[in-house]
């Protein structure tokens, strides 16, 4: 009988090789997971597992925000709402180095205040902003990289599914964790913007600068913001006054966008059909990957590799900051292969008691985990956000997106480092709240 750890190692190798045959990523993970689980338990059980995972993920209520927000973005795109928004952004920021990409980061941060999931934030923003950035001559790499990284703000800026999960697993205040995410979210947004500006200054070809617009042009462009502001008010207002939950916000946002587009007559039947068909196609691609990752995650769970690694780190008996460094390394490497939620479920129960015993603040650790998870969703080979962007803009190759993500990855790493060195960035708000 094959040992679980050996099966897990073989599984990783198999996954790697299979990825390069050109088999779709979701299917690669599903196949590896089924074969691995089959080898360890039984193939009959593996098929049962896969079937249940597929039904679960396809029908997960929490994941329904993905198609609904994508639909919202698609309508906004086909009705020209996003074009008018970006025209205004261009008038104000087009002359700055990487101005349109910085505007996109701002939009991502704003949208993250509505949406708690990184996949949904990324997919929505990708369909809205990439075509616009390209219209202003931005290169594929910067346009796609910015959205893939910016979309990860969805889990750092509250609301956030990861903070909710972490709060429940570690019995920390979810409200407090949400507060803890705010300053790091702002910090990261600024660092993202800075890294874009530096990138655009070093290599001006990726983000051509426009002429400085006159005050008159700027004021004229503001009318293009009306629809967006209306939508933002609808969704934020509804959330604020408790009319609906963040999960329901997707449905409301899509409906609101559709209503505005129909009322103003800016969308025709062809546009609506395109929005519908694009949405189902993109959602299908994303959920197939999530389902594959879930099956693979269940295989990894039964190999107990995440558990063994976590235990090994704990047992090394290192100085506190070395332990933190190792834990971050585990999440970085793990995040390359496993879905963020699964990884956190598998490892937090082991790391959490150690980290708190070493005297680190539980909420600070939560923020650190979210930051490294954000890194995980944009690094190869399995970077869900990169795949999400790829599903929205199929004409940009994966390698280009991964390349485009690099400068922003540096910003993320710096943010993570700053939060590790200065825990107060995360802690000052929740402490003030108490």
């Amino acid at each position, binding site marked *: 009988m094959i040992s679980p750890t050996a099966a897990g190692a073989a599984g990783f190798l198999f996954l790697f090789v299979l990825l390069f045959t*050109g088999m779709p990523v979701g299917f690669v993970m599903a196949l590896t997971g089924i074969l691995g689980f089959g080898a360890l338990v039984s193939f009959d059980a593996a*098929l049962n597992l896969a079937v249940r995972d597929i039904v679960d993920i396809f029908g997960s209520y929490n994941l329904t925000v993905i198609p609904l927000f994508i639909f919202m973005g698609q309508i906004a795109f086909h009705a020209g709402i996003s074009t008018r928004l970006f025209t205004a952004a261009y008038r104000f920021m087009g002359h700055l180095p990487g101005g349109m990409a910085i505007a996109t980061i701002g939009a991502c941060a704003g949208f993250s205040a509505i949406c708690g999931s990184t996949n949904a934030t990324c997919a929505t923003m990708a369909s809205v902003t990439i075509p616009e950035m390209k219209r202003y001559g931005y290169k594929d790499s910067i346009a796609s990289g910015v959205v893939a990284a910016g979309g990860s703000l969805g889990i750092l800026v509250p609301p956030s599914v990861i903070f909710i999960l972490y709060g429940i697993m570690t019995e920390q205040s979810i409200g407090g964790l949400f507060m803890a995410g705010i300053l790091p979210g702002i910090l990261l947004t600024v660092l993202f913007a800075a890294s874009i500006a530096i990138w655009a200054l070093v290599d001006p070809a990726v983000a051509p600068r426009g002429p400085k617009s006159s005050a008159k042009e700027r004021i004229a462009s503001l009318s293009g913001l009306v629809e967006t502001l209306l939508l933002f008010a609808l969704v934020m207002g509804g959330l604020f006054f408790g009319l609906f939950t963040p999960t329901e916000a*997707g449905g409301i946002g899509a*409906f609101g966008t559709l209503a505005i587009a129909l009322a103003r007559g800016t969308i025709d039947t062809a546009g609506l059909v395109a929005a519908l*068909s694009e949405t*189902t196609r993109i959602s299908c691609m994303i959920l*197939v990957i999530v389902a594959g990752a879930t099956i693979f995650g269940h295989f990894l769970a039964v190999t107990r590799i995440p558990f063994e690694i976590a235990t090994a780190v704990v047992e090394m008996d290192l100085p506190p900051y070395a332990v933190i460094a190792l834990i971050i390394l585990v999440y970085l490497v793990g995040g390359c292969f496993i879905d963020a939620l699964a990884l956190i479920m598998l490892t937090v129960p082991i790391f959490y008691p150690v980290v708190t015993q070493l005297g680190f603040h539980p909420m600070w650790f939560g923020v650190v985990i979210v930051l490294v998870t954000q890194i995980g969703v944009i690094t190869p080979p399995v970077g869900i956000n990169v795949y999400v962007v790829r599903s929205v803009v199929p004409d940009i190759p994966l390698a280009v997106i991964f390349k485009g993500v690099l400068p922003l990855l540096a910003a993320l790493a710096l943010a993570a480092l700053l939060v590790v060195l200065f825990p107060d960035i995360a802690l000052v708000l929740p402490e003030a709240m108490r």
Partner: protein
Amino acid sequence: MIRAGHLTTALTKGATFSSWLAAACLLGMMGATCLDVALRFFRYPIAGAYETVGFLGALMVAFALADTTLKGGHIAVEFLADKLPPAPRKWLNRTVTLVLIILFGLLTLRMGRHALELKEAAEVSMTLKIPVWPVVTGITAGMGLFVAVLVTRLR
């Protein structure tokens, strides 16, 4: 060969029809959410709207599978396979497709069995008590169509 051509045409039509069903599910998800939120404002919500939304979501993804695949669909890491000369690349593609047909053929059969088991067990959703088996049957149908589309890709 003519018959194979007919089959492909029929499957393309089937996939397109199925994608329309997916779009209908999407509109249904949006509609159910909005209706529930609006009615809740007047304190008459649909007790378990979220169950309906989840079921529609599952059907949406399953019904979109075939069409997504036809449209060149799923995300893959192509850059290595693309560097191969045409002949080996064709064979690699065929092998990958064959593996997927076997994998998803087995999964479709198992999904169908799961639907039958759920029907037998009379499992319903927690709050609205909607039978679960028709949803799983829908997923089975979507996956079946997807496998059929893969078969046409073998040539």
